[in-house]
């Protein structure tokens, strides 16, 4: 009997559309309603550290997306083989290996980024979002769903840090992706007009302020309250 129903369930799931409503939710939920940074308040350390400029932030975001998707996939594939008693170590080993891979690739193909980011890329290992998704989702779900879940969470993380970086670089250094914006605006109005940059935005304090404002705006909109 029990094997019967199990088989039926599998058959049911296999017929599910590649991007069914449930699966879309896996990706979209962490973007706003269940955002790892603004709602769960995870992964704050790197959100503060790398977000002074857009470019390193983008590299960091891409690295996190890669690590999370691959880690969720590998752990999910192994989920029935991983001994429960050592599962945290196994997760850590997988994540650490992926992060080392990212670091090696950066060192080879984007040496400037590597110099700037290698410390923070290393810290992806301890990024609570990664381990959190492995433990909470990948260990108990199928590979494809886990990939979507990892992608969604990483995307949720990415857009927040990119938003923070946008304001920090614009207000702190007067530029975006290293292209001077403030100077351009100033020159439109002639020599006397000068837009001042805010040094506070360059320091971690600036990230706290932007992040706080973001969380405030978002929670006002979604009506999320912490209990």
């Amino acid at each position, binding site marked *: 009997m029990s094997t019967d129903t199990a088989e039926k369930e599998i058959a049911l799931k296999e017929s599910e559309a590649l991007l069914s409503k449930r699966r879309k939710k896996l990706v979209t939920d962490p973007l706003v309603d269940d955002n790892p940074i603004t709602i769960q308040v995870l992964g704050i350390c790197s959100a503060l*550290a790398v977000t002074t400029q857009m470019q390193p932030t983008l590299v960091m975001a891409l690295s996190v997306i890669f690590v999370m998707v691959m880690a969720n996939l590998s752990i999910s594939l192994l989920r029935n*083989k*991983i*001994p*429960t*008693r*050592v599962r945290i*170590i*196994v997760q850590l*080993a*997988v994540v650490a*290996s992926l992060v*080392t*891979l990212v670091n*090696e*690739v950066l*060192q*080879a*193909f984007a*040496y*400037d980024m*590597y*110099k700037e980011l290698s*410390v923070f890329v290393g810290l992806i290992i301890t990024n609570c979002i990664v381990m959190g998704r492995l433990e909470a989702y990948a260990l108990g779900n199928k590979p494809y769903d886990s990939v979507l879940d990892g992608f969604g969470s990483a995307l949720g993380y990415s857009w927040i840090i990119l938003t923070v970086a946008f304001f920090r670089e614009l207000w702190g250094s007067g530029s975006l992706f290293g292209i001077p914006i403030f100077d351009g605006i100033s020159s439109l109005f002639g020599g006397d007009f000068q837009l001042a940059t805010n040094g506070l935005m*360059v*320091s*971690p304090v600036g990230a706290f302020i932007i992040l706080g404002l973001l969380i405030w705006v978002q929670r006002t909109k979604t009506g999320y309250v912490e209990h």
Partner: protein
Amino acid sequence: MQQSNAYIITFSIILTVVLGLLLSGTAEVLKPIQKKAEELDTKKQILGAVMPAEKIDAMKPDEINSFYQSRISSKVVNIDGEEVEEQDGAQVTAETIDVGKNYKKDPEDRLYPVFIFHEEGNVDAVASYIFPVYGNGLWDNIWGYLALQTNMETIEGITFSHAGETPGLGARITSTDVQERYKEKSIFNESGELVSVVMQKGEGKDYSGEPHKVDGLSGATITAEGVNKMLKSYLEHYKAYIEKNKEGASGMALN
């Protein structure tokens, strides 16, 4: 599900071996590319001492390589300022000398690379001399390239790099506005003694009238002290070479 110890151990061993192979495999494959990137970065740092950073950033890797080729010549000297061409039977070139490795040796036994920035195609038309420097910051090693004008006294420019200084504090030594502070400063005092250039404590004061002092780094006193020590010690090591090549020194008189 409760697994046996044997299962757990086997699983761990297999996982370790698989991950180990994967990582060492990638490292091996990427090594030549990483080495190239590192060499290019070193060239950028050397050129950074004599050129504005924006100009270097705008150049493509090939352009940097060919520019370096045509404008920089190099030699290796010892502590007495004598040129060294081989050591222990092996040829030495400035580019292959690991300043960090040499740093661990006794100053007398070290080899000191000198990079000479010259006019295009004319090795004798020296524009400036670039000396690598190496030392300790707060957390890890710091290093850099110091360019002196042909009078061997005035600083043409300087670049610093670091392995692990605190971002926003000590790591600021890599920023151009900090490095700009060293420009036009002088390493010898009026009586001809080597005094180097010293980064002061505190930040925000104007040292433009003082040839041996530069503004400090607020919150990064130990890194700044490391920079001072590094400059002072390496200038001492290069002193013999510097004295020999001063404009109007004995070498010129012979001509």
